[in-house]
């Protein structure tokens, strides 16, 4: 593809040079409609056009003797350079290329193919994109303990963190050879988010396709202004401190997962309905092209998609313009191609592993229950089973709806004593043994134990231990005692009732599509058993499909039981488990009220019951507004504008104190069970858990915001014997 395009450009340049000889140069340049839309990004090349036919790219006719270059490249690219189909490696790399800093890295060998398999459509392109960190401005290092440069090489903020300045590496190119500049960021911000007030200029009726991400808002919630003083500098200007900006820019792999941040302007412009109002009335085509499964879209990542056959396979090959080198100056990636085969069924995917038909697997498909069969097959499949820490704070968890519609049941759920008793009645060790093979540590349920607030100093470690151990003890007698004292006495039939004597039934709700025998259902069955043992009428209640979200938000469902807390690397970049700031977790109506603060709806429908409002919500100061949540909201609001990191940690610890005293609001099983990683023998530079421990925390693979394995730079992986790993 890109070769064809390059030839076209060269022919065009020659043509325009010929025309230039007979006509006025200016007239020619302006009269080519084909280049008009891309004139801005293509700028460097047209400027050289009048001088000679394409001196920047070596003409095909002249054989160039190999010159010593500063950097080295893969043989397949060297060949293309020889043939004149590709500029030399020094020109393809930026002035200051990125070098992955991990301590376990060795210098590798070029070549070979990495075979992968996934049991869904999204996997064969989405998960491969998730493996590559190349589109992210900054990068998490050391499992979230540090932030390093990405395509942004340096950054700084003013004293109160309200203005941030970022420098992009000069000379990065998209996978089609076009320069990557701040224009590609401004395009995303102005022409798809509608930022900097551009939304007003959109054609009537057209709304922006992307919404502003968290990092685009200051601590008080107002949008930033994004400036690009030159091609390699951009500034984020806020009206108030935005202390988490750098953390948030390191989150996600970006482009197609998480907020985009970068879009290849020269390619996307032609599909943009704002710029082509006559051609497109909506974003459909733009969205179709801006997709990880589109082979035509230029990328910044180590591999680019060559072939996508939906439901069949995807083929990724090295991006000749990838802007990273190893410590000896070899351009990355080492591996030529990633070939991903689609299978339709999870068991068939497992069969592919036990039969050794794939070279690598991240944990998504395989659980701990599969370890035995994968290990048994190891001698045949040559796939080594490795474990990386998940960083989960809870394992399979449960929580009650603090905003349940039925007032009597709500009062029960909101009673800390009730929740504490139920936590003590829960035999976690049994679940740990049966479901998690004895792995992980028992916990009441916290944020990820990898979170920086728990690892920064002794106080942090104490806070973590205090929360983890707060209600973890399995003690049915204590549980019964607490319930008795709180008024949930046993009736004549031996079943506990509400304090007023009316019947009390706990419905342990879960999606009916949950796999029987899976992690969550196995836990739920034991949970019901344990609760029945202390006299509670607990029933397992499957609810239809995946579509319970609406009901949850309206307070119509009592529990969620099939989720887990995996967040980090710090509590504040994704605080939703800690404070009720959205609608999916333990206080949906409080969360909705919080998101609507300062908007007109906060003043509307005040005469109505919170559950009858549209959308259902509880505003601050209302009788249903829980004091514990009020305290959390208040601390959270302070943390958002606090530029000092240590003071922010203190605020987080204060919030955790609320969870310990008034909680648990969500209840976990075990912390930090490992995840399975499969690595073919001979695939080098894939870290072991020990490697990860030396540098960071032993892995932190659960959250999407610390994208794994992208954080460990799969571009550095190589085959000890590349010739044995061809397609």
């Amino acid at each position, binding site marked *: 593809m890109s070769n064809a395009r390059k030839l076209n450009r060269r022919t065009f340049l020659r043509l325009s040079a010929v025309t230039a000889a007979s006509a006025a140069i200016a007239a020619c340049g302006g009269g080519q409609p084909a280049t008009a839309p891309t004139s801005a990004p293509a700028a460097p090349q047209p400027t050289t056009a009048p001088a000679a036919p394409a001196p920047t790219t070596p003409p095909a006719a002249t054989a160039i003797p190999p010159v010593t270059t500063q950097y080295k490249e893969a043989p397949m690219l060297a060949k293309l350079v020889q043939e004149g189909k590709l500029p030399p490696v020094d020109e393809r790399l930026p002035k200051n290329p990125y070098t992955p800093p991990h301590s376990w890295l060795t210098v590798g060998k070029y070549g070979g193919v990495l075979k992968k398999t996934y049991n869904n459509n999204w996997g064969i392109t989405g998960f491969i994109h998730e493996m590559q960190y190349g589109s992210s401005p900054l990068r998490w290092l050391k499992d979230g303990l540090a932030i390093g440069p990405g395509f942004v090489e340096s950054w700084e903020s003013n004293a109160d963190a309200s203005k941030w300045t970022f420098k992009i590496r000069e000379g990065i190119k998209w996978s089609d050879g076009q320069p990557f500049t701040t224009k590609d960021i401004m395009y995303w911000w102005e022409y798809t988010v509608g930022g900097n007030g551009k939304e007003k200029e959109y054609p009537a009726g057209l709304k922006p396709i992307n919404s502003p991400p968290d990092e685009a808002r200051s601590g008080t919630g107002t949008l930033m202004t994004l400036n690009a003083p030159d091609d390699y500098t951009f500034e984020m200007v806020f009206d108030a401190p935005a202390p988490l900006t750098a953390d948030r820019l390191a989150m996600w792999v970006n482009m197609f997962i998480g907020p985009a941040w970068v879009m290849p302007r020269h390619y996307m412009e032609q599909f943009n309905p704002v710029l082509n109002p006559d051609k497109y009335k909506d974003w459909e085509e733009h969205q*179709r092209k801006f*997709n990880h499964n589109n082979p035509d879209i230029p990328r910044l990542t180590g591999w680019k998609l060559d072939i996508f056959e*939906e*439901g069949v396979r995807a083929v990724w090959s090295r991006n000749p313009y990838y802007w990273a080198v190893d410590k000896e100056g070899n351009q990355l990636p080492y591996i030529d191609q990633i070939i991903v085969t689609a299978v339709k069924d999870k068991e068939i995917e497992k069969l592919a592993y036990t039969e050794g*038909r794939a070279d690598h697997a991240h944990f998504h498909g395989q659980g701990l229950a599969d370890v035995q069969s994968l290990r048994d097959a190891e001698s045949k499949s040559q796939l080594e089973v490795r474990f990386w820490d998940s960083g989960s704070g809870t394992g399979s968890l449960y929580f009650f709806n603090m905003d349940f519609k039925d007032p009597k049941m709500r009062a029960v759920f909101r009673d800390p004593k009730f929740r504490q008793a139920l936590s003590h009645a829960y035999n976690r060790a049994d679940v740990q043994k049966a479901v998690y093979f004895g792995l992980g540590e028992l916990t009441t349920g916290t944020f990820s134990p990898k979170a920086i607030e728990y690892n920064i100093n002794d106080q942090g470690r104490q806070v973590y231990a205090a929360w983890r151990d707060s209600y973890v003890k399995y003690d049915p007698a204590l549980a019964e005692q607490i319930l008795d004292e709180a008024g949930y006495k046993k009736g004549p039939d031996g079943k506990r009732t509400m304090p007023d004597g009316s019947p009390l039934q706990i419905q342990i709700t879960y999606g009916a599509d949950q796999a029987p025998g899976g992690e969550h259902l196995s836990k739920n069955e034991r949970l019901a058993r344990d609760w029945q043992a202390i006299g509670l009428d607990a029933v397992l209640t499957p609810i*239809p499909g995946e*579509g319970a979200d609406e009901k949850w938000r309206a307070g119509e469902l009592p529990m969620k039981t099939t*989720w887990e807390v995996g967040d980090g690397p710090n509590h504040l970049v994704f605080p939703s488990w800690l404070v009720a700031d959205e609608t999916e977790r333990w206080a949906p109506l409080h969360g909705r009220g919080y998101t609507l603060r300062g908007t007109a709806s906060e003043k509307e429908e005040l005469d109505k019951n919170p559950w009858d409002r549209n959308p259902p919500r509880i505003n601050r100061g209302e009788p249903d507004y829980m004091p514990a949540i009020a305290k959390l909201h208040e601390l959270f609001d302070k943390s958002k504008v606090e530029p000092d990191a240590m003071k922010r940690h203190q605020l987080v610890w204060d919030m955790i104190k609320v969870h310990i005293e008034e909680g648990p609001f969500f209840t976990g099983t075990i912390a930090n069970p490992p995840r399975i990683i499969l690595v073919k023998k001979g695939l080098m530079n894939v870290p072991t858990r020990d490697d990860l421990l030396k540098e960071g925390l032993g892995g932190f693979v659960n959250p999407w*915001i610390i994208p794994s394995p992208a954080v460990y730079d799969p571009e550095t992986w190589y085959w000890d014997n590349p010739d044995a790993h061809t397609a």
Partner: protein
Amino acid sequence: MLNFIARRLVNMFFLLIVVSFVGFWIIQLPPGSILDVQIQRLRMQGGNLPESMIQALRDRYGVDDPFYVQYWKWISRSLQGDFGTSFETDQKVAERIYNRLGISFGLSLTALLFTWLVAIPIGVYSATHRYTWPDYLITFVQFLGLSIPGFLLALILLIMASRLWDQPIGGLFSPQYADAPWSLAKLWDFIRHVWIAIVVLAIGATAGLTRVMRANLLDVLNMQYIQTARAKGLKESTVIWKHAVRNAIHPLVMSLGTLLPALVVGETLIAIILSLPTIGPLYLDALRSQDMYLAGTILVMLSALLLVGNLIADLLLAWVDPRVRLE
């Protein structure tokens, strides 16, 4: 005749509109939407999605629109030939279906031909040689074929193929041939992969069909006109093939009516196990994830095939059996 066909076609059009409406309504009945599926995927194992991104997705998929708005958006454009975009992959619905249609039809037609070519002669042989040891043998094999579930057979063959012939798991080509232009080597590679699917698809169907053929023929052979035919001295082969089989084959012809849609989605379970890119698994996924436009379009396509299949069956029956009148 022409009048009959024209009338049926007009009826068909209106019937399809009704079917599409009802189908679309049923598809969206279960609570939730494609959005929940997308969110759940991103959230897998504790991952997270900011509220702002969720809202952007809601707007994009129009999941907040009432059902009739969604339906109108889709049907009004479908009538102009644009079936919309699949939510799951952002590809055109028509493109996704088209990519799989060839393989679906090819596979099922091959299996069908295989089935009929095997089932009819064997059924006839079995009926005419009732209670002889070849008949017992055939019956035994038939019941074996009927009682082994296709998916199990597929799994067994899949593992055999991997262990004995070093074939990759599933799919239609080995990686080295996937991009190669067609050649003898590629054809051989294709056959090495596709035979499992054809054998699995054909075995169950063949067994069933042979039983039906045998039973029907046995009925017919007891008829008086067969006796008459024999009595007037016709050759035995003429008696069987011209007089008996032609009358015994009615049920097979009538089954054509339901055959066309079955050709497209009949192999779903087997295709899932063998990772074949056919319509069946696509339809299942679309229904499960409420990929509305995709599911709706396939539904209408299947309904159209059912109606066309019935029309063809009626015409064919009239041709096979002069007693049937179309008017």
